[in-house]
């Protein structure tokens, strides 16, 4: 994987995914949109997501309909603004069942730090684990978010 430097406003940002702690400069440049759910992330990185029905209606994560396709919007911010990291993969598994989804989602970048994912489906009720894979240059980090589908 080709390495590259991340920069925000001229500030080197190599340590972003390693969580080495650049000083948080406030989130004014990249407020996570209302209605997005935060995923536990190493500061200053912020990952937030929200599901949408196929018709584009935003819904709360706990209301994702079982066995129906849905979309996901992801927002990546850091202390200085939109994160230069890329959402390189998203997937979901049922740890207790030891299997994942029957569908392969596709990711499209729709703006700085913004991604839209199509083709998600939780085809069974139970506990699911969402996995977000972020890439910046040669650095890769995975973040997880657990949720129950009824």
């Amino acid at each position: 994987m080709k390495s590259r430097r991340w920069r925000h406003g001229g500030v080197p940002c190599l340590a972003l995914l390693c969580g080495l702690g650049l000083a948080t400069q406030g989130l004014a440049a990249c407020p996570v949109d209302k209605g997005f759910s935060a995923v536990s992330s190493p500061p200053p990185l912020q990952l937030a997501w929200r599901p949408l029905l196929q018709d584009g209606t935003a819904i709360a994560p706990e209301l994702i309909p079982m066995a129906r396709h849905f979309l996901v919007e992801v927002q990546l911010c850091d202390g200085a603004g939109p994160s230069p990291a890329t959402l390189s993969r998203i997937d979901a598994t049922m740890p207790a069942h030891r299997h994942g989804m029957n569908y392969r989602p596709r990711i499209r970048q729709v703006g700085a730090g913004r991604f839209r994912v199509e083709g998600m489906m939780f085809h069974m009720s139970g506990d699911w684990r969402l996995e977000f894979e972020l890439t910046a240059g040669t650095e890769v980090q995975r973040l997880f978010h657990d949720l129950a589908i009824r």
Partner: protein
Amino acid sequence: MTLRFAEIFAWLAAGLLLAGPAVPARAQPTAADGGFSTAEIARIAGHGPWPMPWHGDPGNRVSGNDAAIRLGFRLFFDPGLSANGRISCASCHDPARGFQDGRANAQGLRTGTRNTPGVLDVRHQRWFGWDGAHDNLWSASLRPIVDPGEMGGSAARSAARLRNDPDLACHYRQAFGKAPDSADADLLVNIAKAIAAWQETLVSPRTAFDHFRDALLANDASGIGAYPAAAKRGLRLFLGPGQCATCHAGPQFSNGEFADIGVPFFIKPDGVDPGRQGGIRRLLANPNNLLGRGNDDATRGNATATRHLRPEHRNFGEFKVPTLRNLRQTAPYMHNGSLASLPEVVRHYSELDEDRLHSDGERILKPLRLSEGEAADLVAFLESISAALPATAMAAPLTAPGCRPR
């Protein structure tokens, strides 16, 4: 999207359930709510309403078209599409048997290796056939016409039948707005689309379970009390220890996906049925899938499932999770028709042979080890999701105005 009251209630109930501590939990379920807990009621609500809302098939331009429905009815019962002139769609999909045939394996020109699936409520399906080799109803309706082992027909034979029968030709003109003079292959696609349009009208009736579910949500003690105690006990098993609803979910009692539940996939004398693995292969090779030019939805918004398919090793030996509606009319059961009765189906899950399950497969499948009484309760519940089919379900649509009655 228009939500019915019961749907709204179901969403609210689910939301309240998930909200956890904010919901004042009832100390004890009462007789008035059938003895079901708040959590159970929320899950029961998710198995309705019935019938489900339906908004037509955007991939079939004659979906919901009255003239196409009339044409599709005629074609569904027309043996003239088959090679020997004696087999129609209805030969296997018999209206008197829940649009199934009562055989273990389908019998067309040859004996098949799979059980004939019923077509009631087929309009709600995402995948068609036990292996999901079709992603749309018209494509699934076309295949048996030309399958050498089923009807053994062809595009040329079907087109000639349409052109040479004045009644069919008249109904075709009404449905498609032009004479049946297109190329044979295009006419065959339109024949399949008309047959699909008719099948979309086949909706199974409300059942004892549906009445109970609605009574529960409406707090109607009389309606709740009318549901047999054995069915209530079976429902509790279905939702709880049995974990049946993990896959047999929603108003159709199916998540529409695929699973290996330990039913053998060997075919006598020495073959094997790859199930979903082969289905995905056939689907992607089929020009009539939703990524093809026959899809009337120009946006391809209806092709999400096909576009995002993820073939997996575990697909080998997986078969479609069937609906549990109309089971009383659709014995025998399983993809190969190997289980003759509902007690046998329940016994299969009770004594599940874990050694038969795919090593990559579902980990929560365990033998239920049901007592005799529990097994009977589960059967009572399953039977409560069936109702006698009204005669109107198989009534012929009227002859189109301007067409000569047969």
